[in-house]
């Protein structure tokens, strides 16, 4: 099999990519795979995936942290460390495991007590469901179970869409 990008070299890196809900397989030569990993800023940080594949050595834990990117706004954890500001609300989900200890350090707690937007009280159950799915998704990625990951991601999207629709209805 030849590389799907350059069509010249034999494909030695086989990637499962999830872009906009679509899961696809990519067969690339090592050179193109490396290049793509630099170009792409997709949901599952392709460079992270690369880390567990082919003959690319697995990155150090620190390096892994730095490479995580928010799928919504593209801000990386390294960016956050540099500028001290997150990129969007979704960053809190993307960097959840790194932010939890940080929040605890800043505030002495990592559990919100206080008001919430009214519509959230209703949607709380669904939000919690989504949280659980996100955790599962994270585990699936860690275990490189990418088909499972894609399935979970679809499920999350569906739930989110449903919640958004409900919010719109509520407004109307």
């Amino acid at each position, binding site marked *: 099999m030849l590389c799907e990008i350059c069509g010249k070299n034999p494909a030695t890196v086989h990637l499962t990519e999830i872009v906009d809900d679509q899961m696809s397989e990519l067969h690339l030569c090592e050179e193109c795979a490396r290049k793509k990993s630099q170009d792409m800023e997709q949901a599952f940080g392709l460079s992270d995936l690369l880390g567990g594949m082919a003959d690319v050595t697995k990155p150090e834990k620190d390096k892994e942290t730095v490479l995580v990117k928010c799928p919504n706004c593209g801000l990386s954890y390294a960016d956050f460390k540099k500028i001290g500001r997150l990129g969007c609300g979704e960053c809190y989900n993307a960097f959840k495991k790194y932010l939890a200890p940080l929040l605890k350090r*800043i505030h002495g707690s990592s559990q919100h007590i206080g008001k919430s937007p009214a519509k959230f009280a209703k949607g709380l159950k669904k939000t919690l469901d989504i949280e659980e799915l996100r955790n599962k998704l994270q585990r699936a990625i860690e275990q490189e179970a990418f088909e499972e990951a894609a399935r979970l991601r679809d499920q999350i999207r569906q739930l989110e869409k449903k919640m958004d629709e409900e919010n719109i209805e509520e407004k109307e």
Partner: protein
Amino acid sequence: MKINDLLNHSSEWLKGTGPNSDIVISSRIRLARSLSKLPFPHWANKKQSEQVCDAVVEAAGKVGFLKQTTVFKLADLDSVDKQFLVERHLMSHDHAQKTDSKAVIIDHEEIISIMVNEEDHIRMQVMQSGFNLFETWNIGNKVDDALAKELPYAFLPDWGYLTACPTNTGTGMRGSVMLHLPALVMTRQIDRVLAAIAKLSFNTRGLYGEGTQALGNFFQISNQVSLGHGEDEIIGNINGIIRQIIEQEHQARELMFSKNRALLEDKINRSFGILKSAYIISSQETIELLSLVRLGLDLGLIKHIDRARLNDLFIATQPAHLQKIENKKLTSEERDVKRAEIIRERLGVA
């Protein structure tokens, strides 16, 4: 409403009314809110920022009790206008920098102001004279609820309202109280008080917020922590601290009054004398002297000046206010002359 219309009434935070207004200047609640999915202002492109600005302005327009407001696009304001709003505490100094896609929504009583695209998409502020943080929070809470009906906030049940900086995550709330503590400063007890406050995770800042020096014995005390405590609890804690500081300032004032009256009267009347007779005066000196005259008024050592008029001088003598009053640009030297003139005039000795 035009910006110049604000000149016709006193700034809310300097009205000098409300509970404990001899020591507490104003109570302020700030809430940070972000719109879900959209990048925070520092990370957003122009189109996204415009989208946020339009959405927030539109939402505010639908809120019944925000009808008496005016929206100012920062890009449309000149530097004096911007500084003018900062001096009135209607927006932050940061908000006046890099003005693309920024706006500020100001209610005509100057109690509520909403900054759009400051550090977070929404920074709403409610400010009232005197010591009444709970009432101020109640107003903020209502504004927030009303906006939440129109706008999808970024929120997580575990972490509350999500903000650009994790130091504001949770309630997104900062409650602050501005205090006038001349006696604690004069009796050199202030450092001890401030150190104690810092140990309890409260911040102290000067007259104009973050990074400003305590000028004219004004101190702004606010909560540092926003996650893990409910709004009422945070406000209750601030109130507890403030009550103690008020008590200490009262004691210090009484002590000076009974033990060192001559010294106190000397300082206060010298300050009054300089203000009444100066022909050139800087804004820093003005605030420091006004602070002592205010103390004299509180202690009954100075009579025959109107409190509201004195309070108004704190703000009328600020650089942008002077230029608005004169309706032209003034150099720093020209301002010092004009400032002295206005003070002489308003203290009735022109």
